[in-house]
């Protein structure tokens, strides 16, 4: 993983100079920086963060190959479903209903989970969630904990926090093991090590597990991971995982996974901690009928995921005897109050949007500087940050609409992106950018020019004269200064033609033959 951009970027961020807002841990005792690149507070703006990735041909090849494979599988399985559009609509309706009455359903979940022997905790932010988890582990005197892949745990930067508190964390999902042992960062929410290829995995496993002559055959690699994991499953007394769904009606929790590591974590340890965002609620048990169908097909291109675990509280003598659920807000509830943005919380984390996104295909996940990359990350992250950070993310999209087309819960991501862009601009209107930012000034000037045809035509004339200076003998512009240089770095621009269309229309000799003379005079008088 010598060329993983996380490394390159963490070198850019001055780790020592950072301070901790919102209770984010900034470092641990051994001086390692905790996921600096995926913390929106410190991440570089997207256009800058993307540069090292764009120059890393191996990484781009890994990402493109991986998502092309997943996408093709998804497309095949969606194609065979004649009621796919009805399923999407049903998925959106179920999530909308849950969000509409989230207060009621969360309380209902709390009551029913508690009645079944679970302990439910409410965490307003990441810091509170981390403290609750640490207290539970301290009470259990746990010095080690095994983990099921959970992006929510990465969102609250749980691992570095626990490590700094002296608790060892062991990831059990294959991709997460690769990242933990290779000291990498997740670049995808379903396939976190998507940017790492087989030979890079071989190198990490051989080095960190001390295996000589390890081949890069997938079977050999999974066998190595299996023997590494088996010891952890059998001896570690506590597990932490996320949730795909929380069922308000019964107080049950659902986790879907492909490797069986989740099933092991959910059944073998004596203490189980589930960390879930408040938007994971489903009203009824029967809602799983729709959600499980759309999630598996969208996420991994499977009709059904290999392991679906559902449990309700605690069963005496069977599985973990202590079960905690932490309901995490961490910036979610303010999103509920916004009409256009609320649909963001429908997300079931399938990652179909990033798999289809032409931007993600080039940059991979790290450039987004957030545990949630791709189109969903571009709308979710700045909102979780209450628009104080990650302001470049809503602009990290060409608005091509591929994400909306595949989203199984019909989140109109382009619509939300545009709305968030307007929020960023409204912040600029109050700041210094309005005096010097060329994009801001250009857009304001363009608005003025478009406010009347006369001004527009005058602006065209000025532009034509101004551009003449940059136009070559071949009639094309090869190099522009300032913002225009971002265009001419890879493309030419044809020089402005002498006669705009409207001037041709007015001048054309045969106009009166075909158009009513009165009509023309009427318009000219306006």
């Amino acid at each position: 993983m010598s060329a993983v951009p996380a490394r390159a970027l963490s070198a850019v961020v001055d780790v020592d100079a950072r301070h901790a807002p919102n209770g984010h841990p900034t470092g641990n005792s051994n001086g390692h920086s905790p996921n600096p690149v995926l913390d929106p507070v410190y991440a570089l703006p997207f256009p800058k963060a993307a540069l090292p990735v764009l120059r890393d041909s191996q990484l781009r090849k890994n990402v493109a190959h991986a998502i092309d494979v997943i996408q093709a599988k998804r497309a095949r399985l969606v194609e065979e479903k004649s009621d796919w559009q009805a399923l999407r609509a049903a998925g959106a309706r179920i999530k909308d209903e849950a969000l509409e009455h989230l207060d009621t359903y969360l309380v209902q979940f709390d009551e029913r989970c508690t009645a079944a022997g679970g302990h439910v905790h409410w965490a307003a932010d990441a810091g509170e969630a981390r403290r609750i988890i640490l207290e539970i582990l301290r009470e259990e005197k746990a010095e080690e904990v095994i983990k099921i892949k959970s992006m929510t745990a990465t969102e609250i930067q749980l691992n570095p926090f626990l490590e700094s508190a002296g608790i060892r964390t062991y990831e059990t999902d294959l991709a997460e093991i690769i990242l933990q042992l290779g000291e990498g960062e997740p670049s995808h929410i379903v396939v976190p090590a998507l940017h790492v290829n087989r030979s890079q995995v071989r190198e990490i496993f051989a080095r960190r597990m001390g295996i000589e002559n390890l081949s890069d055959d997938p079977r050999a690699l999974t066998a190595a991971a299996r023997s590494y994991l088996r010891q952890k499953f059998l001896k570690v007394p506590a597990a932490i995982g996320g949730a795909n769904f929380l069922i308000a009606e019964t107080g049950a929790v659902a986790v879907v996974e492909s490797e069986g590591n989740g099933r092991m974590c959910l059944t073998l340890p004596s203490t189980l901690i589930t960390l879930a965002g408040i938007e994971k609620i489903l009203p009824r048990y029967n809602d799983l009928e729709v959600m499980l169908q759309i999630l598996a097909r969208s996420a991994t291109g499977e009709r059904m995921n290999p392991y679906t675990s559902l449990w309700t509280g605690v069963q005496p003598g069977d599985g973990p005897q202590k079960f905690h659920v932490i309901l995490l807000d961490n910036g979610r509830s303010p999103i509920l109050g916004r009409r256009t943005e609320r649909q963001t919380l429908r997300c079931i984390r399938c990652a179909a949007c990033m798999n289809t996104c032409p931007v993600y295909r080039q940059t991979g996940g790290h450039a987004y500087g957030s545990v949630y990359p791709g189109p969903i990350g571009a709308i979710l992250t700045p909102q979780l940050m209450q628009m104080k950070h990650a302001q470049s993310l809503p602009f990290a999209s060409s608005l091509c609409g591929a994400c909306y087309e595949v989203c199984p819960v019909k989140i109109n991501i382009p619509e939300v992106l545009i709305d968030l862009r307007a929020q960023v601009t409204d912040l600029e209107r109050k700041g210094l950018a309005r005096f010097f930012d060329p994009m801001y000034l250009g857009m304001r000037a363009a608005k003025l020019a478009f406010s009347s045809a006369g001004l527009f035509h005058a602006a065209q004339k000025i532009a034509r004269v101004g551009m003449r200076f940059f136009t070559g003998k071949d009639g094309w512009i090869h190099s522009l200064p300032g913002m225009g240089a971002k265009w001419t770095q890879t493309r030419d621009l044809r020089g402005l033609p002498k006669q705009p269309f409207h001037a041709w229309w007015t001048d054309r000799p045969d106009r009166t033959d075909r158009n009513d003379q009165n009509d023309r005079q009427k318009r000219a008088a306006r």
Partner: protein
Amino acid sequence: MRVSLFITCYNDTLFPETGRAVVTLLERLGVTLDFEARQTCCGQMHANTGFRSEAFALARRFVEIYRDVEAVVIPSSSCVAMVRDQYAGLFAELGDERLRRDFAALLPRVYELSEFLIDRLGVDDVGAYFPHKVTYHASCHGLRALALGDRPARLLGKVRGLELTPLPNLDRCCGFGGTFSVKNGEVSSAMLAVKLQDVVGTGAEFCTALDNSCLMHLGGALHRQYAGMRTIHMAEILASTQEEVVR
């Protein structure tokens, strides 16, 4: 029938030949064209870059100008998508009931060029002649927002002499995205590089589309790379006849 042409700001400024081709084509098909002299811009660039209050004014302007016309034809799929997908939301936010009503009445009369030809005029053979190998780029807005479907292929399929060669990964964005191409210039260029491999790989002489913004992006790179391939708006292909080659 009588139709008003909304040429769009960037076609007016940068691609007048597209406008001239639309005029040639529609008049050949017996349509009487009007051109509202007050027209400027639909507001797409402002709306998509986050300048919503600026977009409000331009959207309002569009509706006021075209309120009473029989039909509006726009030879740019992204501008049609702006009108169709974003205006209603903008007007709802403004809370102007009259504007909302006027817009709702106008909306069914706003056509993208290929929609107008096939849905309104009911023709797919426009009598065109264009003896070249051509590939069609489906522009994201034409493909997804407008769902143009097989309309472009039907029109091109009836052009005499034209050899249509399919573009692989038709649903993949060229990386233009308006101000995205400047704000995220390097990422946009990376997307463009991937798209160009497919475009150049077709071996076509021309790459056509129903949106000059994608074509400006692709064409700018083809020119930079001496690729020996040109971009052309589909209106120009459809306007071209054996007697009168438009380009």
